[in-house]
């Protein structure tokens, strides 16, 4: 397999030559929170604004035509990136909005619709969900009287599937799970869960925030119903997310945000709505951000997700084995590389993650500390916070070594002082 020319990649990301605190090299290990952006993405956005900016779908003049073409071109790029049809790809502002859109649309569905949910129905999530894939469902359950149930997590950080067929039963309307945990790094095995979901006639929603940016995800071969992810975690701009759904579901699903450009006809009393994707894109869209995301997809595709994935696997393996040599350090999550992606959480005796993160920052190393928007998972592991390093295509073994050395140095600073 081709390997990555990291020094040339690093040059595409201007921020990586920044200096941190007292003139340290930036070692950015927080891509799980948000990724950095290559020049090509920034250039695509700027080119949109300086050459083609106008309201897409809302004008017959040349700029509006060009803006429409660029915006719809971005949709095509994203669609082919995840193996979807172009009309199935909806631009939202974030994965958070995408998931809320499904939850609110279901709340809007009238009885008789396959999206209708009410008392006695069931929503299934897991204990390892990000708040973005938990609270919208809690709220939907509260509004409708449906019941929220969840998969537990095993001690080694995997989904506990022993009660799969009890949890997902004939009352289940929706199963919403993360593809990869943003804390543990665990990649969840989907096949049996999706099969069971469809067996009982329920819909499967995948939170792909931590997977789509890092390895090949094909919505058709996963046989799922909806997917949500964010542009900013995959080299794209902030302010753009994706909701994908199977076309026949989207066309049946009630709208969520309403307003301009999603209507068929409007009177003072009522309105009728266009088909997907327009039905779900009310208002002047986040055009420049969609175009930037298109450029991000081009960048990732040119390198190849397989190459990126095996590079990240190599870094993660090195990080885990390096970190394990440090006194009092525990990895939280699976250590078997076949079960996980490039997100590594750990704890170290006697040092609070906040202090560790601060020390690493003073050496130029950016990691995430805290509950990672997965508070129930923290409780599951009887802690309040972890330290998390996450890798992406622009990281290299020097970065991994900087992390391991930095953690050891911080340990000495706090524990041995």
């Amino acid at each position, binding site marked *: 397999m081709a390997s990555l020319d990291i020094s040339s990649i690093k040059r595409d990301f201007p921020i990586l030559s920044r200096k941190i605190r007292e003139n340290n090299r930036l070692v950015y290990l927080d891509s799980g929170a948000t990724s950095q952006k290559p020049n090509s993405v920034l250039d695509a956005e700027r080119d949109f604004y300086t050459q083609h900016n106008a309201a897409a779908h809302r004008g017959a003049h040349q700029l509006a035509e060009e803006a429409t073409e660029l915006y719809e071109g971005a949709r095509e790029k994203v669609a082919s990136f995840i193996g979807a049809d172009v009309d199935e790809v909806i631009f939202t502002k974030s994965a958070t909005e995408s998931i809320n859109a499904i939850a609110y649309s279901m709340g809007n569905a009238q009885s008789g619709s396959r999206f209708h949910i009410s008392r006695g129905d069931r929503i299934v999530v897991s204990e390892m969900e990000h708040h973005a894939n938990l609270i919208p469902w809690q709220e939907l359950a509260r509004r409708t009287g449906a019941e929220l149930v969840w998969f537990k997590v095993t001690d080694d950080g995997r989904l506990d599937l022993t009660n799969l067929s009890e949890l997902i039963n004939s009352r289940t309307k929706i199963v919403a799970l993360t593809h990869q945990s943003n804390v543990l790094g665990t990649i969840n095995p989907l096949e049996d869960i999706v099969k069971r979901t469809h067996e009982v006639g329920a819909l499967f929603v995948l939170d792909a925030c931590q997977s789509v940016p890092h390895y090949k995800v094909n919505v058709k071969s996963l046989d799922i119903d909806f997917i949500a992810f964010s542009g900013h975690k995959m080299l794209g701009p902030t302010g753009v997310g994706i909701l994908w759904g199977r076309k026949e579901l989207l066309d049946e699903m009630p709208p969520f945000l309403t307003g301009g450009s999603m209507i068929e006809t409007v009177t003072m009393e009522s309105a009728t709505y266009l088909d997907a994707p327009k039905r779900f894109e009310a208002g002047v869209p986040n055009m420049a951000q969609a175009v930037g995301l298109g450029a991000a997809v081009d960048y990732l595709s040119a390198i190849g997700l397989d190459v990126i994935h095996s590079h990240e696997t190599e870094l993660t393996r090195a990080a885990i084995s390096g970190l394990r040599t440090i006194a009092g350090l525990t990895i939280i999550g699976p250590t078997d590389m076949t079960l996980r992606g490039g997100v590594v959480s750990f704890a170290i005796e006697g040092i609070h993650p906040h202090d560790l993160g*601060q020390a690493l920052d003073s050496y130029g190393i950016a990691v995430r500390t805290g509950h990672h928007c997965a508070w129930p998972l923290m409780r599951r592991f009887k802690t309040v916070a972890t330290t998390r390093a996450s890798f992406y295509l622009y990281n290299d073994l020097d970065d991994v070594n900087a992390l391991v050395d930095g953690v050891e140095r911080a340990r000495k600073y706090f524990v041995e002082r």
Partner: protein
Amino acid sequence: MELDSLYQEVILEHYKRPLHKSLKANPTIQVQHINTSCGDEITLNLHTDGTVIQDITWDGIGCSISQASTSVVSDLVRGKSVGEALATIDAFQAMIQSKGADTGNEDVLGDGVAFAGVAKFPARVKCALLGWMATKDAISQSQSKNER
């Protein structure tokens, strides 16, 4: 080095050997405060006759900054009048939120001045304030309880 300006010796000292970190029974008021961005939490027991802070004890988990800072405030305001205690807390808050402009008066803040460096790390300001805000909350709850 910049890190040392944050982690003063006296802070690490309080962190390793926190004062009054053991809840005393039958408080006038008990409060729980959480740092919502990292999950750290403390429980704080206040004993007061309405005029004087008789005792402050606490428990909880958190980073060195929040633990040490709670240790400092619990020791600093005990024995003070309610008014004095609130003024002390205000002085600490002003220092911490001054972005470095106010380095604190040691006569008023005691070991609290060691936290002056935190002002330069905005993400840690909440950590340094956790115990102080809990104390302030407990005092004001005890006051309104008194008024009833």
